């Protein structure tokens, strides 16, 4: 049964109850088979494909009235699409929203995992454009499905090794493939590989929604998530040789901001909540600008 809110004309969380049940069943199977992509009948949403329709459907299906929702895009709560999705749920589900990672029960994200450690009981919902990690090596769904069924991932290792042969490094810098719980190879969505280690043994439940491609997958809490690599070329994350110019944080992911047309630039936290919190605690960066790439 669907009970429309008289103010919005739509059900709680926009989706009708039948659609929510269908998505919920897919989520339960996704959790039971970590890293496996469960097909689901994604609906047309009132925002375009590519804007996070998969994440929005997953969030809409799990959200309850006591949840506190945070939405980030590129690590930031204030990018336009994050604002737009947060406003969508504030309007259709009337849930509490926050920008603080630690206060949120559900965090929907595009392209980043928050810097602050996630905790037990939180759910991180990823927006996924291309859920199939093998898609760019084999465009056919019928083929990739067989490869997953047989756990035949040689193709992926060959690709990564060709990178090494050509560039001396694995040239995949985001959407870096991972192996989940020793079985399925999974696309972590286009997060920079910097964030991959945060997925491993993460206390939060991680759910992935791909609307256009109609797939849902999951990583339960405290699950082994291993970035693919080789003994002679172990997985390594990006490092930044400078702290955040605003809050002085080190070991975090930084955005490069161009300041002028003379090569002036500065590097600041991509996770705006983390940066603001640090500044509120009194941490300050140099605020300085640099010229040209080091």
């Amino acid at each position, binding site marked *: 049964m669907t009970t429309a809110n008289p103010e919005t004309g739509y059900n709680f969380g926009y989706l009708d109850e039948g659609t929510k049940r269908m998505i919920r069943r897919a989520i339960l199977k996704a959790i039971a088979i970590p890293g496996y992509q469960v097909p689901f*009948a994604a609906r047309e949403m009132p925002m*375009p494909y590519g804007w996070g329709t998969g994440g929005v459907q997953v969030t809409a299906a799990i959200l309850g009235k006591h949840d506190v929702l945070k939405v980030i895009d590129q690590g930031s709560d204030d990018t336009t699409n994050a*604002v737009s999705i947060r406003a969508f749920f504030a309007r259709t589900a009337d849930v509490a929203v926050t920008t603080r990672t630690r206060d949120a029960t559900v965090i929907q994200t595009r392209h980043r995992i928050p810097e602050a450690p996630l905790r037990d009981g939180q759910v991180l919902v990823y927006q996924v454009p291309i859920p199939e990690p093998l898609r760019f090596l084999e465009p056919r769904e019928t083929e990739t499905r067989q490869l997953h069924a047989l756990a035949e991932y040689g193709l992926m290792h060959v690709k990564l090794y060709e990178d090494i042969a050509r560039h001396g490094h694995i040239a995949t*810098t*985001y959407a870096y493939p991972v192996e989940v719980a020793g079985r399925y190879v999974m696309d972590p969505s286009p997060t920079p590989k910097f964030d991959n280690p945060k997925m491993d043994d993460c206390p939060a439940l991680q759910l992935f929604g791909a609307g256009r491609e109609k*797939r849902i997958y999951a990583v339960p809490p405290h699950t082994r998530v291993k970035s693919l690599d080789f003994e002679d070329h172990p997985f390594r994350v990006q490092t930044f040789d400078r702290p955040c110019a605003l809050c002085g944080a080190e070991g975090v992911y930084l955005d490069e901001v161009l300041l002028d047309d003379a090569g002036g630039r500065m590097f600041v936290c*991509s996770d705006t909540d983390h940066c603001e919190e640090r500044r509120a605690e009194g941490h300050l960066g140099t605020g300085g600008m640099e010229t040209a790439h080091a």
Partner: protein
Amino acid sequence: MYVAVKGGEAAIANAHRLLAETRRGDTAVPELSVAQIREQMALLVDRVMTEGSLHDPDLAALALKQARGDLIEAVFLVRAYRTTLPRFGASEPVETGAMSLRRRISATYKDLPGGQVLGPTFDYTHRLIDFALAAEGEAPVAAESEPLPDAAHAPRVTDLLGQDGLIEPSAPDDGTPPGDLTREPLDFPADRALRLQALARGDEGFVLALGYSTQRGYGRTHPFVGEIRVGTVAVEFVPEELGFPVPLGEIDLTECQMVNQFHGSAEVPPQFTRGYGLAFGQSERKAMAMALVDRALRAEELGEPLGAPAQDQEFVLAHCDALQATGFVEHLKLPHYVDFQAELELVLRLRAEHAARNAAPAMKEAAE
């Protein structure tokens, strides 16, 4: 001093206001009514209904108005609205053989029962800009009505061919309800009903180009237009509690039956094969292109050589939807700076290594 970008919310609100203003355009010009769009942009309305999978001319016209005439945006509005509608069930199959005809042509027979009825068509117009229309002149003189054939006396060309066994029979209805790709994720290989559904919803331009490619040798099917018919059919529904069909109303359809490349074997005498297209309203180009691609997608079933794009169902079905295509193409304008930074870091590192290698040319030469 740089301050982290703020104000996304205000920016969005402003953009919405600007959009509303731009949509209206010059307020000295009278506003278009939905009825005007429905009546005078009828082919556009038909296309929005077809690709939007919802037969509602008023809603499609409203969507076009709201979308500033952007076709895909209008389809998007209709589809997003359609998702929220409750479903009561599936109608009975419509009987196009009993269509009340407005137009009916065959390219395979000069004359046939029921005759050729040109109806309202651009086909033989000279494409000269009619400046009289700019003057907003008087209503055109009513055309002398062509004698319209009685539906009972205008059988489908494929039924005529079928009587003589000259065309493969349509697959019999085995009672299995056809799939619904708005309710089930598309799975490959998809059966013909699902493929037709995807093509009907598919972008007209994409389906047209694929159909065209089959005519140029990429999966040739030797098509003849057996028949195109445009008109009105009744829609009936059997409510669970009644158990008999009740009429819901009428809808306008365009149906195209292509008669294609014949097949035969030691057991079966040669027979023509079918390609099928169906669209809401008067959408001939779409129905024809769809029929070509439908036939091309049957290549494997008919044991024909494979390899052309239009024969490849994973390629065709995964890319024919305008909403999916436009969404993923246009999402490139969303911020990607986190991933770009990751790529930039790698390129800078590779360039540094490259420079270091080139800085020691003597060693390199020695190595060679």
